[in-house]
């Protein structure tokens, strides 16, 4: 369904654009505190960079760069980071997502809460990126047979 056109312009532009897109996605993630952004938005942009790769270069190129097994591991890893930080707060004596009790090496409780939220956003970032790519690959390859497991 997505075949490879011999189109130099698109390939060159995408090759220059995709690393910047990924860098911007990480910027949006990190600045979620101070400007519009956060985990979900950054994750979607990172996933969109891979989708741009698929559109410009074809499905095989993307499959070589990221496999389904790696996507599953990223998705589960992201969710483990999220729940893990929450459960770590449970073990430290607070309630579930009480970042104030986490032993970060910062000065005051609000700063610890800021670090905790950053950790959660990173977890969401991984998950959303993996799921976006996974949905797109699954829908794009439905006519050539599904993937295994």
């Amino acid at each position, binding site marked *: 369904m997505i075949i490879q056109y011999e189109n130099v312009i698109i390939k060159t532009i995408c090759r220059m654009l995709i690393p910047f897109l990924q860098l911007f996605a990480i910027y949006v993630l990190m600045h979620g505190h101070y400007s519009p952004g956060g985990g979900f938005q950054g994750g979607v942009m990172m996933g969109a960079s891979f989708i741009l790769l698929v559109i410009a270069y074809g499905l095989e190129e993307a499959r070589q760069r990221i496999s389904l097994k790696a996507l599953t591991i990223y*998705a*589960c890893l992201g969710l483990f980071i999220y729940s893990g930080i*929450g459960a770590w707060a449970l073990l430290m004596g607070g*309630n*579930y997502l009480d970042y104030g009790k986490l032993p970060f090496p910062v000065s005051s409780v609000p700063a610890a809460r800021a670090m905790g939220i950053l950790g959660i956003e990173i977890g969401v970032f991984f998950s959303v990126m993996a799921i976006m790519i996974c949905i797109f690959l699954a829908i794009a390859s439905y006519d050539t047979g599904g993937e295994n*497991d």
Partner: protein
Amino acid sequence: MNTPQVQATILIILVPLMFSYAIPLLGWRWRGSAFFVALAAIGASMVCSFILLYTVLTQGTIHYHLGGWLPPWGIEYVIDPLNGFVGVVVCVISFLVTLSSKESVQKELPDKKVRFYTIYLLLFTGLMGIVVTGDVFNLYVFLEIASLTAYALIAIGEDGAPLASFNYIIMGTIGACFYLLGVGYLYIVTGSLNMADLAKLLPPLYHSNVVLIALAFFLIGTAIKMGLFPLHVWLPDAYTYAPSAVSAFIAPVMAKVMAYILIRVMFTVFQPSYLIEMVPVASILSWVAAAAILVGSIMALAQKDLKRMLAYSSVSQIGYIVLGVGLGNKMGLLGAYLHILNHAFMKGCLFAVAMALMYRTGKRNIFQLGRIHRRMPFTMAALVIGALSMIGIPPTAGFFSKWYLILGSIDARNWVFVAVILISSLLNALYFFRVIENAYFEGVHGHSQKEAMDGIAKVREEVPLSMLIPIILLAAGILLLGLFNERIISGILVFALPPGF
């Protein structure tokens, strides 16, 4: 009150959630481990739910502040006796049904086991989240988690399953969006999203139209999700074409949790006095429920397919619960709570029997069942107990919940409802006796005796033990609940009534 038992409030959701994304990782390597991980997670939640119910009954309502933030600013999980009770019901039924699903999933969906159990455990997480939370928007989030996973699980069935699931997607999304609109309207007038806070802030505003519109949106959204009479159209297709293990899980549990949302919105967020005296919502609900009871039973008479008949019967049983809620007096509400418990066990038992029949014979047509009791005696015995309970014959559990509903209707001086309950019990008797007759005697209605006996061997060939034991436990549970219902009512349910009853 930060004892370890209180942390069970969050563990009841956290454990299934974390195990549900451990399943894909473990399942890459060991395929068979998916079932055991799911079972372990639901078992852990079941233990937590028992701890929570015991703690609530002995020490009072539990308030759990998520993230350490105090209520109007943060999300709060509140466990009171109603919550704890519904949580125990959901966990126990889920555990038994999951235990019995192993062989059925192995036979119907052998290459999708890992992903099936992932989504299954996420559905369980969503349902438990709805039960535990005390914040209206958090309830919307968990409602959507439960609904999305249910859409996905229903769509992997057989012939008409994707179309049935698409219908359910469209109607379920409308329902959830209406719930979200109700939350929005309440937020505009009060500025708070916490249930207890709303209950304090709303009474001065009861004369305004905005609160009335919010109530209307809540009720219609919940009615679509529950399958209450005019909005039940998605329910028979979804329950019939889903894989057997999925029907056995969704049918007893999901509609009860939606009925719990209805009770929570009506009696905790809005005061009962508003709903009974100022706006005649309770009486409208009870009349709609009476129509649901009759229509469900009549439609169930016309079905040839066992699961479709049970699905229409579910429509009518949801009508019983809403009738109890809408009656507005103590007996009716106790009848509704007791019916939540009883119907979960009854429908769990009946759908598990349907799953066992599908596993052994591959057929769902009632009229092709002839003399199957020789092959599967224990399963058919469980079917008989479930059927007797649905009809309402003492000492099975179904009799007692109908008894309380009739007492509630008499208290409200409404003889039409008494007649509706009795007529529908008769109709239940009609269609369940037809199933029992076909299962125990030779095939009737056109199939000759020889034809029926040729298809089915005469040797005893029961279902595997992992499917049989939960069925027997559910049937025994129906009998025990009937015998001990007085203790359940006086020990747990009386504390779950809203103040003023």
